């Protein structure tokens, strides 16, 4: 077996997750937020693979769910970026705090 304990992988993916959340919280640019969300999904994927490798009786399960997650990430990126482009066309900005039309 690979000589890496499960906890190391989990802590690594936890750190990646935290970095992603930090990005999603502090970025002003919508594209920056989308990128951070990709990081978060990536961390989740690493967890899935690690668990299926170390604890699951059927090792292909993790890979299959990771594939689903990647597909969802691709759709979220496509739709999100389409929204960003539409927004940019109308408002000429991609910064979240400048899009305050519904804010009162």
């Amino acid at each position, binding site marked *: 077996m690979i000589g890496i304990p499960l906890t190391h992988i989990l802590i690594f993916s936890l750190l990646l997750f*935290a970095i992603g959340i930090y990005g999603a919280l502090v970025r002003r*640019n919508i594209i920056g937020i989308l990128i951070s969300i990709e990081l978060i999904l990536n961390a989740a994927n690493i967890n899935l*693979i690690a668990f299926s490798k170390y604890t699951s*009786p059927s090792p292909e399960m993790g*890979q299959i769910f990771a594939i689903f997650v990647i*597909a969802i990430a691709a759709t979220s990126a*496509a739709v999100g970026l389409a929204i960003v482009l539409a927004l940019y066309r109308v408002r000429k900005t991609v910064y979240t705090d400048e899009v305050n039309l519904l804010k009162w």
Partner: protein
Amino acid sequence: MPVLEIAVKFGIYAAMGTVLIFALGVVTLRNLFHCALCLAAALIGTAVIYLGLRADFLAGIQILLYVGAVVTLVIFAIMLTEHLAGKTVRQNNSQSLPAVIGLAAFVAILAALIVKTPWPLQAASHAKISVMEIGQALMGTYVFPFEVISVILIAALIGAVVIAKKDNSGEQS
């Protein structure tokens, strides 16, 4: 061959470190284009980790879909919305400090939990999972989620086209 195994182990740890550094780059760099490139590097590093964990198929999918498609889309959007002159705009809002504090607490608690939990480790098999097994599981046990994913993909495709399309009908009427 213990030397090779140690080399692989070291390689995985190195990949983890690189991924974390590039991930930090993704959330801190000012130039959004650099962020996207850092994201690509982090995703490739993750694919390397998958290779180390004997999930080759997923590593291939990761590079094909994430690096080949998602990052390209992101860069496309950046090119369409940023200005080439590259004037540096403030990219972060003023919530940096509370975010860092909150996340530090979050990470500390979860890390403590991860270390303390007795994981039900199984003697995982050495063998790589062949692509055929994945395919059979996708078409057998997981066929319903697979179909749902394909419907979602189609819906997202159409939705993205409809949203991003120029609204011609509105101008004419």
